[in-house]
């Protein structure tokens, strides 16, 4: 496998030449795509077993958003010349397992999701949006995904507080 830089700052990704900047961005988009898809699948299973209609209403939206974020990330990844190959990491798979488990309480799942989303919005995604190595089109897509996640997090926190009777 080549994978190295060639003249003009380009690398080979499959059969297409991509810029060095795009090559650095592709794994991030691929990881995001895999994480969003795994999240959507876990949320779908939570919705199926959730008995609280208030919670179900919002979870449906967050699940659909995750699915659309995966599609957006894949679209950008392919536009940059990449091919999606990533799968969710072990830690994320464990989180998804808990979220999908009908025997875990809604409150525990909410706490877990809030912690997870907070880390991503303030971590990887935030960094990707701000770094100068990301093209502005992808930056805008990532910023919109981050905005959705912020909204989801606000809602999850509000529901969590409501369940706690705060």
């Amino acid at each position, binding site marked *: 496998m080549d994978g190295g830089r060639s003249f003009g700052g380009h690398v080979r990704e499959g059969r297409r030449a991509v810029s060095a900047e795009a090559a650095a961005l592709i794994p991030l988009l691929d990881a995001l795509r895999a994480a969003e898809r795994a999240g959507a699948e876990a949320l779908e299973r939570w919705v199926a077993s959730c008995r609280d*209609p*208030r*919670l*179900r*209403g*919002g979870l*449906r*939206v*967050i699940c*659909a*958003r995750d*699915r*659309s974020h995966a*599609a*957006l990330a894949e*679209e950008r990844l392919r536009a940059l010349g990449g091919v999606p190959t990533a799968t969710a990491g072990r830690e994320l798979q464990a989180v998804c397992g808990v979220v999908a488990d009908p025997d875990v309480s809604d409150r525990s799942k909410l706490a877990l999701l809030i912690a997870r989303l907070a880390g991503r919005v303030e971590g990887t995604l935030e960094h990707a949006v701000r770094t100068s190595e990301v*093209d*502005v*089109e*992808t*930056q*805008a*897509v990532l*910023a*919109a*995904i981050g*905005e*959705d996640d912020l*909204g*989801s997090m*606000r*809602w999850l926190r509000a*529901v969590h507080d409501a369940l706690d009777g705060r």
Partner: protein
Amino acid sequence: MSDDAHDVAAFLDALRAAEEAGADVLNAWVATCRLDELRGGLRAIAEREAVHAGLLAGRLRELGAPCTAVVNELLRAGAVSRFGSAALSDEEKLSLVLARYPDDGAVTKPIRRVIESLDGDPETRELLRLVAEGESATIAWFRAYQRALGRRVPLPE
């Protein structure tokens, strides 16, 4: 179905049709958009509109209500043609969108009114709450982008 439930279903259906048409218009704009950053935002916002339309259609099905509303075809086709036109600048298109919403709250006002009447249906209420929040985020983004665009110094010809 009670009269109130019928009114709510009609609102959800009209909103679904509007979101679907909105996604069509935004996708037409994406195809001719010359500004990379704006194009990225439009892609994400078009996707958001399509997600809202899908969620509302799903909820209507669960409530046993049909999805029959359609946006007037002349209006929809006109908007697709205008926003998909290369003859109109991105700045003009931004102004057209924002002229419809004098403030960020204007876009969600009708949704919030329905949310207040939905205590008997918390599932639809919470779904609408997040849809409204997404709509606010969209208008806020357009406004912020327009402001940022206005601050940029044009390149000398």
